């Protein structure tokens, strides 16, 4: 790496500060929007939480507890003040602090989405590169067909297909466990990050690590396939464009080996659009994982959020949307940084505008 001198570090720091400052406003706006939207969803949340036969006084107690009879502005004020202190309220469905729910369910989804991200990045770039290097050959055509299928097939359909063919001996190979994060008989590892694979390695529990990874593969593959296909197409397209550039012809003329040309001079600049799309896909997967989580009985945040919407679990809805908002923002900042590393012109442009 030939950047990150003191001046650039300063610029990076300022860039981060600026983005974080902007993000605060984005999150504030998001919190108002989601607070209002969740309250116009049909259904009395207290009645839905307590059931048709709960006495009116019990319903009223819950309404009072949640300040549901206060004016909207006051409700928001109370919620916002508590949220600043780290209290996002109680979930109407699980009946415990939403923060506890998030701590429980977010790592499960993160683990899924992280592995899906790794699979889609490696798979997408590899397939895209192969396709570009063998443009218009049978390899290119094969990757094209696979990519189109991956893009148009929703993740839950892929999940059902995987479940049917790779978890039972009826149609295919009984290779993977159908549901959950660990097999029966395995204790979750001592909690550090909440990611079972990481925590089990930290605790030196190799059996648990293998079991957790075994459970992760099918759902994350199902989730990854759409973004993998998209990234493969984009990588292929950008690389094909760059292949015709003069500097590539010059490097070839200088006798630089093809592998070096592709790996060092062609791939790097071609990855910029892929990385941008990857960032969006990664964050979107966190909220799109709902059906995959349902099918694999995965106790994740996406499933939690969708159920919260259906049952008008106000605090849970607001908290999860904020978490998703933060994830989008963080991932996008990271993407900007990576794009800066990949393309010096963007860094230089950034420097001039500063």
């Amino acid at each position: 790496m030939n950047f990150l001198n003191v001046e650039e570090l300063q610029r990076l720091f300022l860039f981060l500060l600026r983005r974080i400052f902007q993000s605060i406003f984005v999150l504030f706006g998001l919190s108002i929007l989601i607070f209002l939207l969740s309250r116009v969803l049909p259904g009395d949340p207290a009645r839905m939480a307590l059931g048709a036969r709960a006495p009116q006084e019990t319903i009223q107690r819950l309404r009072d507890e949640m300040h549901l009879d206060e004016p909207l502005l006051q409700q928001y004020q109370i919620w916002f003040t508590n949220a600043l202190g780290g209290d996002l309220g109680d979930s109407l469905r699980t009946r415990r602090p939403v923060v506890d729910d998030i701590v429980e369910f977010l790592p499960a989804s993160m683990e899924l989405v992280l592995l899906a991200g790794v699979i889609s990045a490696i798979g997408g770039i590899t397939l895209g590169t192969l396709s570009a290097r063998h443009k218009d050959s049978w390899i290119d055509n094969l990757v094209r067909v696979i990519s189109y299928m991956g893009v148009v097939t929703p993740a839950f359909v892929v999940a059902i297909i995987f479940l049917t063919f790779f978890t039972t001996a009826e149609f295919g190979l009984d290779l993977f466990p159908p549901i959950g994060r660990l097999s029966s008989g395995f204790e979750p590892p001592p909690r550090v990050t909440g990611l079972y694979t990481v925590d089990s390695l930290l605790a030196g529990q190799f059996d648990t690590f293998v079991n957790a990874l075994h459970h992760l593969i099918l759902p994350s593959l199902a989730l990854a396939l759409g973004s993998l296909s998209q990234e493969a197409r984009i990588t292929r397209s950008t690389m094909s464009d760059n292949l015709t550039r003069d500097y590539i012809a010059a490097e070839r003329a200088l006798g630089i080996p093809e592998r070096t040309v592709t790996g060092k001079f062609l791939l790097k600049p071609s990855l910029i659009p892929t990385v941008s799309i990857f960032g969006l896909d990664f964050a979107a997967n966190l909220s799109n994982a709902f059906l995959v989580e349902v099918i694999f009985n995965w106790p994740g945040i996406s499933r939690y959020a969708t159920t919260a919407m259906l049952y008008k679990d106000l605090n849970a809805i607001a908290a999860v949307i904020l978490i998703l908002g933060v994830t989008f923002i963080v991932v996008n900042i990271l993407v900007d940084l990576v794009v800066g590393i990949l393309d010096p012109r963007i860094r230089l442009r950034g420097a001039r505008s500063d």
Partner: protein
Amino acid sequence: MRKLLVLTLLLLLVFSAVAFAQDGERQLRITFSWPTAIDPAAGDDFSSSHALINLYDTLGYPDKNNEVQPWLAESWEISDDNLTFTFNLRQGVMFHDGTELLASDVVYSINRLNDIGEGFAYLVPDAAAAALDDYTVQFTLDQPDPLFVPRLLRLYILNEDLVRANYDMESTLYGEHGDYGRNWLLTNSAGSGPYMVIDYPLVGYLEMARWDGWWNAENFVENVADVVTYVDTTEAATVRSLMLNDELEITDNWQTIEALQSLDAIDGIDVKAFRSLTAFYFMMNTRLAPLDDVHCRRALAWAYDYDQVVALEWPGTVSMIGPVPRNIDGHTSDLTIYSRDLDKAREELAQCQYADNIADYPIDVHWISQVPAEEQFALLFQANMADIGVPVNVLSTPWGTVVENASTQETSPHIVTIYTASDWPEAGFMLQQRYHSSTANTWQQNEWLLDEDLDARIENSLLIMDQEERYAEYASLQREIADQAYSLFLYDQRNKHAFKTFVDWHPEENSGVMGYQIFAPFIGVDS
């Protein structure tokens, strides 16, 4: 490429070795629709009832004839004025932590349930409870209640000391009781039942281990499960994979007819359909034109094809006769029984005040989006009503909207399609929850009867001490409700579960009260 292939093969080998390690425990795994609340003062739905019954004991136990048999209580006496109930508790009953269950625990449990007011609190009267000694508990009522003992089947006895030790005193919700142990009881059990919680992360699964110190352990069936797991899914593809993979013994009762038929066709899997206390209604808003005219309502009732309705359900399903399912005590068949008769339908329609311009009054039928099978009944209704010239709009409505709509007369639709279960197999309970004004703003009653006379008759019928007289009054109420065609009575629902044939399970030998059909101590697992 070769390296990649070798690595993949190695990984698969490791996975296989780890994945198929078996620990030799006898397991009973059942899928359920979530959430499952295991706090006795919170849970009251299908999965929660099944969990509570396996984790906690109650004073009595309902047999297949719905008679309450001694359980924690060895006997009980009722005073001559029917106001005082004295229960003599079995001695030596141990909670899961090894401490003894005493009368004070019973008093604590009813007080906690009524203070919190959720779950089954609506069913258990707020009676004054007192522990006369360690093994005698007395309840005093304000007015006689012939159904007090059955109501106590929803009083699950908690270990007072254990719950108190887990109060969150930072909460001020219940005064001196802090949070009443609610947070702790979300994921833990404090009972004396045949199973105890070993792992409950709130979603995903509920894992329970057999409690060999159970007072009735000698009656565990020989091959009873060591571990019972409720699995949080009803997704058909997942359920099917689990069954095929020998990771599920009994499915939930929300599988579609097609899914069940497909499972039934697999060797080693069978389907059981057995009685329930649930019925399927088209609830008609009697305050909304043209359904505010009894003749219009009757016209719809005579025009609907009930034979076609049951043909869409699992074989053996039967049409309802009147507003109360036929396996509920106090049901009567001596009332107007509607069947498809277009002549009668047209006759009634002619008498309806909206007959001349009925086309101007399209009837909206809301079916619940989360239960796709309901749509076919709504479409059949639409087609049947076209035969008498009544226009029908079929609308898919999410459950949240159904609940919201039900809260006011103005927003309640003409018809909403709903399954509802009686709390106890006695007609008065079903009549109360379906037609009494107390449920008029809930999803349990779209009819909006708000009829004070009817309310008083329902309330009084439930207080009649003599069973024969009580049933006669129930019959009279059913006749009136059928005659007025407040609802369309579609069918008595049967619970349907696919199960592995090695599971020795006889739900029909148990009471129809929700939760008792999957009572794990009496289910054998032969695999």
